[in-house]
């Protein structure tokens, strides 16, 4: 077992714990933080596969993932603020439809 494989195992753990957090958290903001955990896990997997292959393409894809993460957090937090403003605060279990 080389150190790159150990890093890949860590990245799998990070991704799955982000998914677990999306399922179990009640608060909308902490739910968004869990999606960020998943994105970090994917980045770590890209970079360690890059070390295995010996190129730089994985780092470039990780750069694009960072861009999409910034866009996602802007839109997601805008949605959270809009939900807070429209109906008072709702937990993640009470938003079951996409309209009023």
């Amino acid at each position: 077992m080389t150190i790159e494989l150990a890093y890949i195992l860590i990245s799998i753990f990070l991704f799955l714990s982000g998914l677990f957090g999306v399922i179990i958290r009640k608060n909308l903001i902490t739910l968004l933080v869990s999606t960020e955990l998943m994105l970090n896990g994917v980045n770590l997997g890209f970079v360690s596969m890059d070390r295995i292959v010996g190129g730089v393409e994985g780092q470039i894809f990780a750069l694009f993932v960072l861009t999409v993460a910034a866009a996602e957090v802007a839109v997601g937090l805008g949605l959270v603020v809009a939900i807070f403003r429209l109906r008072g605060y709702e937990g993640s279990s009470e938003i079951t439809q996409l309209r009023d």
Partner: protein
Amino acid sequence: MEWLIFGLLAVWLLASVFGTLFFKNPVHVILSFLSVILAVAGMFLHLGAELLAGLQLIIYAVAIIVFYVLVITTIPWEKIKKFEGIYKKEALIAFPFFAFSFGAISYMVLKGNFQVSNKVPAENNIVSVGKTLFTNYLFPFEVASVILLTAMIGAIILGRKEE
């Protein structure tokens, strides 16, 4: 020595991931997520991706965390405190599935035939990433800027007050 650095970073990362998953207070969750980001940046440095470690610190640890904290300050605190913690029954049901999938994927990774190339990069990391990004991946780079513009317009429209 490599395994010592790996062990330190991995223990740090695991502790902060558990904090992110199970703390009650959203501000504590965001602080432990900051700790996750710093640990992942250390792992990037250890894997030899210096540019990505710097970008991780700039984009995540500065921009995104500050944005989360700003959003928390704009929302009244009682509304945030009303729903906190985790769904216990769902956690108990979901945990075996995640443990099984972690075991299965790890088994496949460990049994797989990965050959680590010992190719030493000819030039430093930032130079090679920049060359590849602005030659082979120029079009996806431009598309990423369009995605950021679209997200900016969408966030402005969503955050506007309704008349």
